[in-house]
């Protein structure tokens, strides 16, 4: 077991190195750099900056160096000092910028995760047990709606509905008057009134695949002989299903829960952008569009690490459960 773990950790590091190369390449792909992006933005306003200033700055930032030199500097700083660099746009260290949004991102992700599970599991169980019934169709339909509707559109529509018909203040996670107020019951209620839209949209989107997995696994289990035996022994139907098959059916599902980690960070970027949520997603998008090199690079590395950790976790869980895989 330990050998397995060590082997995987080593390959994780190698993969991480490969990812860092690709990450840096991705950021460098679009022509130009942060300075051109910044200049474009102020130009849209009518502002200008003199060419000399720009050229000198490019030198100062090291943006005129060849790509591999920039990469070496970046990696060097991370490995030797844990220094991820400065965000050009925010004029602050990258770590500061990243962490400042984590709190809200985690809140949102956990909330949506809970909703997804709460909706998907019962529907999955029901549709496996009552296969092909109208109830099965209806509940799968609801579950799949989340996947089928383009999320950016439904976010906008729900925002509009909240404004028009519920007279809610929309955008962000709090209404203006509660932004900096102390925590109170009304502040929590206000937060909920803003959270319902993203939680529903993101939550529903995740239900489809979960329902499918749950349904498939449970169907498999329900056909096994021990279920027939339990039923024959006279156990009430509910116990027949819930006591063992559901728990067994959850096993593979739990191992895929490892994929949740990267989702925590990127947390449905598009919905967060449309709803103007102060989470990590919009920040990542911004940093990519404005080529805020170090911030975007750190983000991509973070996402990749989380994905790899997720895979590792799921493989570990799988290996724990199924010895064949360990030695295969």
């Amino acid at each position, binding site marked *: 077991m330990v050998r397995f773990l060590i082997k995987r950790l080593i390959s994780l590091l190698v993969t991480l190195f490969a990812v860092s190369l690709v990450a840096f390449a991705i950021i460098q792909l679009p022509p130009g750099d942060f300075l051109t992006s910044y200049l474009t933005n102020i130009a849209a306003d*009518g502002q200008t900056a003199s060419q000399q*200033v720009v050229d000198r700055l490019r030198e100062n930032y090291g943006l005129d160096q060849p790509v591999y030199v920039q990469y070496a500097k970046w990696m060097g700083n991370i490995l030797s000092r844990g220094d991820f660099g400065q965000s050009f746009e925010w004029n602050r260290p990258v770590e500061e910028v990243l962490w400042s949004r984590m709190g809200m991102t985690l809140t949102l992700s956990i909330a949506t995760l809970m909703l997804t599970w709460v909706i998907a599991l019962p529907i999955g169980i029901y549709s496996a047990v009552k296969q092909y019934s109208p109830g099965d169709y209806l509940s799968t339909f609801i579950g799949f709606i989340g996947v089928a509707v383009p999320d950016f559109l439904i976010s906008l529509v729900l925002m509009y509905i909240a404004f028009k018909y519920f007279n809610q203040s929309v955008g962000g996670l709090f209404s203006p008057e509660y932004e900096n107020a102390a925590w109170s019951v009304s502040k929590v209620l206000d937060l909920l009134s803003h959270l319902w839209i993203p939680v529903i949209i993101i939550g529903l989107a995740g239900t489809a695949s979960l329902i499918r997995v749950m349904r498939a696994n449970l169907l498999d289990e329900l056909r096994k002989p021990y279920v027939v035996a339990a039923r024959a022994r006279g156990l009430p139907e509910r116990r027949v299903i819930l006591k063992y098959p559901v728990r067994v059916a959850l096993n593979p599902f739990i191992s895929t829960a490892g994929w949740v980690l990267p989702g925590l960070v990127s947390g449905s970027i598009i919905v967060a952008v449309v709803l*103007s949520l102060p989470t990590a997603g919009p920040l990542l998008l911004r940093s990519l569009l404005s080529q805020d090199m170090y911030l975007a690079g750190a983000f991509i590395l973070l996402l990749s690490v989380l994905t790899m950790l997720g895979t590792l976790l799921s493989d570990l869980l799988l290996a724990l459960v199924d010895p064949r895989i360990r030695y295969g």
Partner: protein
Amino acid sequence: MLCAFIALLSLSVSAQDMTYQQAPSLDAQVESGELPPVEERLPANPRVVEPLESIGQYGGTWNMGTRGGTDDAIYTRTVAYHSLVRWNPEWTDIIPDVAESFEVNDEGNVFTFHLREGMKWSDGEPFTADDILFYFNDMLLNPEVYPAPPTWFQSAGEPGVAEKLDDYTVQFTFSAPNGLFIQNLATPQQQHVVQQPKHYLSQFHAAYADEDELAAMVAEAGVESWVDLFSQKGAFVAGRPDTLWLNAELPTINPWMLVDPMSPSATQVRLVRNPYFYVVDSEGNQLPYIDEVIYNVGAEVETLVLQALNGEIDMQDRHIGTNANRAVFFDNQEAGGYHFYETVPSSSNVMTISLNLTNPDPAKREIYQNKDFRIALSHAIDRQEIIDVVYVGQGTPYQVAPRPQSPLYHEQLATQYLEYDPDLANQMLDAILPDKDGDGFRLMPNGERLVIAMEVIPTLQPEWTGALELIQDYWADVGIDMQLVVEDRTIFYDRKLANQHDGGIWGGDGGLEVILEPRWYFPFSAESIYGEAWQHWFNNPNDERAEEPPEATRQQMDLYNQLRSTADAEGQNELMTQILDIAAEQFYVMGIALPANGYGIVKNNLHNVPASILQAYLYPSPAPTNPETYYYGE
């Protein structure tokens, strides 16, 4: 926009005879001794502003929306527009602001500014000539902070000299006349002149701070050099995003001071009244009337739109006041409790169509530089239909030229080649590119089809794509294949700078601020899309991307350099008119229509807001209309 150099004497004597009142919210602090009484907080000669409608009441919170990050221009446009001088609300004149008066000598190379005695920063420290000199001598002329002194502070290639004559008098001397110096000081970019307090920022400046202490602070902040720290603390370092609203500890002279600054995680930026603000109304009430200012940070425009509809934004035109949204805002006026104010654009055109006249492809370059080619393309466009379809009938056909109300209005430049005449266009094009391929598109002399790749940023102005699709059809009718290339800002900008573009679309800057923003009249800056290689030559002949322009263009450049050294307004206007004459001859770019007036929304209970506000970058609306006099009533 006119610019008159008026040597003003001290403002109305009555200012010194007034008794002053302050906002009730400050009473408690004065009583407890935390703050000195209002007479001691104001300078001996405060600036007096006459409110537009009526004397206001103290109180209220001003809510606005911003997109966050680098969208800091809104800060200057509302709170942070205070410098030595400023535009008057009508944009016809320059009036003193932080300076109580100023003089220019006859040759136009020596400028003397008198500051207000007793004026203080928001932390109570005196505002003196030292603060101004700190900016010029320790920042602008310090190559670590400013790689090269900016052009507005140069004359005949040399930077000016800033001197302190006494605590409240500053003098700038240039080796040659600097005609546009005063005007430049009134533009929003130059607010930093009075926003860099020496007593605070010198702690982070290498020339003043103790070396070890500074190094320790740099390490603690996790930055690379003292300049980075300096910038984080609020100093304006060249090329970096403006940091004015990132540091709440930076003392300021603005009407409101920061409490919750902008930051990556900020959802609100909050400011409260500055008890040391140096302006009073005509009855001696210390301004501002409004107690607090809040910027709600939202990433997306549509969210801002909804917030505005909901009445959560008190006054705004930026981002949300588009043609497309007008109907929605109109319908919701009563429910939202707001009404429209008019915005008068300074823009000369709804869109400017540029062909790259310094195209790297020599075959295309030859065709584009042929003026008849451009004239033909202009005649092929049905401008009235574009106005009807895309702009709902608002606007009149116009080329890229100064607006009719500008004293520099140039009829030829504005109205030439506007008629929709596809037959004439075909005729002219037949003479230049007679051969066509199987689909009816014209071929270049080398046998390839001529394809114009027109680059555009759709998010800037959504109407552009609609209009371009129509133009695509019009040009196809005369055999020209134009492809829309829709791209992100950064890509557009980069390709433009590298002179890789074929053609590009932008707005019409310089409709009113003709002299300060002549980019469409001759290759002046990197914004002159049609002649990037030429503008490089104008700004730095040694740049490897520079190319010498044709004679007429060089003539324009000489004239503009002369203008820069001309002291009086009349002389400047005359030179500018000559430049415009040549621009009309050259017909560099084509336009579509004169923009109609726009709108903004303002809550019904916010007063002293003008019904009509000019819109430009250099006139950072609504700031010149004195937001410190806005107040909340019924």
